[in-house]
């Protein structure tokens, strides 16, 4: 193998700054998208678990739509197509007036995509709560909204922490797709370093190490949360 090793290149200016900016961008995009995904996904999941046929159809369609189109194409649709379909003024604002259009678009696209996956998990979590709970809650005179808020959701969330951890980790990985619309996140920066210095091994190893560190941090954090909120007793352990 004909390769000239040079690990020092990672610590030279400007490559070190590029790495730092890439890591910051990945973290920012992922966390921002996660807040959208968690909020919206929970809402949709709750509505999807309700009995009403019309509501289930609407939420089911949302989930189906966002799960059956590749995330890459979704980002392209938001970035290239949506501004063309909107009325001229709105479209122009999206393309010019919006600060950092590619970053905002990436966050929205990633957030909505992940929201559909979170919705599925939340709905499954609510369904996994023993039926006796909702019946008892209703029998005690709680309204539907109160039953959800005080009885079902707290239990459902604890059940759903493990799969949600997986979704949280996935969002960090999926944030790399934003590089296709011009967001200079971690993978994009290391690819830049590779094309400038030809030290691909070093550059990609740096990215790999960071992603693994993120994975480790997320899993550890979630284990801690899981342990602290788990419900004692056999019934609730999924």
């Amino acid at each position, binding site marked *: 193998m004909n390769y000239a090793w040079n690990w020092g290149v990672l610590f030279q200016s400007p490559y070190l700054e590029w790495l730092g900016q890439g890591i910051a961008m990945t973290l920012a995009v992922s966390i921002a998208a996660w807040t959208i995904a968690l909020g919206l996904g929970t809402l949709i999941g709750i509505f999807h678990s309700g009995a009403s046929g019309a509501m289930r159809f609407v939420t089911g369609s949302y989930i189906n739509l966002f799960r059956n189109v*590749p995330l890459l194409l979704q980002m392209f*649709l938001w970035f290239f197509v949506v501004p063309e379909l909107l009325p001229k003024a709105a479209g122009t604002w999206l393309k010019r007036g919006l600060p950092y259009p590619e970053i905002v678009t990436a966050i929205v696209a990633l957030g909505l995509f992940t929201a559909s996956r979170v919705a599925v998990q939340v709905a499954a979590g609510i369904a996994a709560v023993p039926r006796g709970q909702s019946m008892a809650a209703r029998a005690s005179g709680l309204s539907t909204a109160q039953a959800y808020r005080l009885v079902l959701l707290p239990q459902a969330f604890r059940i759903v922490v493990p799969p949600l951890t997986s979704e949280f*980790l996935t969002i960090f990985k999926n944030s790399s797709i934003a590089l296709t619309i011009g967001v200079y996140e971690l*993978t994009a920066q290391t690819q830049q370093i590779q094309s400038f210095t030809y030290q691909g091994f070093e550059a990609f190893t740096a*990215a790999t190490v960071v992603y693994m560190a993120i*994975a480790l941090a997320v899993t550890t954090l979630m284990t801690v949360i899981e342990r602290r909120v788990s419900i004692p007793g056999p019934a609730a352990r999924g």
Partner: protein
Amino acid sequence: MSSFDISVILDALPFLAKGLGLSLGLTAVAMIGGLVLGLVIAIVRLSRFRVLAMLAALYVNGFRAVPLILVIFWFYFLVPLLLGRPVGALYSVLIAFVMFEGAYYSEILRAGLKSVRPGQWQAAQASGLTYLQTVRLVVLPQALRKMAPLMVTQGVVLFQDTSLVYVVSLHDFMTSASIIANTQNRIVELYVFAALVYFALCTAGSALAQRLSSDRQRAH
């Protein structure tokens, strides 16, 4: 914005169809390769050989921690270097996908193998079968039947993931649609068309997975 122009899509249909063929072919090869590799890894992880099992676990956790785009870049860069000669994007991408999917399929298969009732393992070994024979003749058929819906779902995810070869400019369906969209100045038509095709195919795949899982439930 001028009106929706279908003729662009019709003109480019052969080019797009070729891209779709590549996407589907890539999915098929990665699925088969990934399943075989995943099976080997799953069996190793459940075996008695602690060191090998640990290495296998490292492999799986490693590939599951990193984005697929990074894996694609890695192999695009690494394969020609290791082989000492130029390698086209297609071969690098195939290797990348098989190794990546191997990690994911191994998790599904490992769960499937573990879910087979312990009584089956014990009865098989009591009957005198070796570890490998047990796996091959008793445990695996049951595990595969159980995991079929999940494997199909993973296949649908894989089909969507093939769109990422865009980053190495391999002419799959997504890249081909993007090329026509950009060169013919018809982004709306092409991307909407691409979305419809992906949606149709993935929904069909998910429906198949649904059928498989409900068939199984009915059988019990």
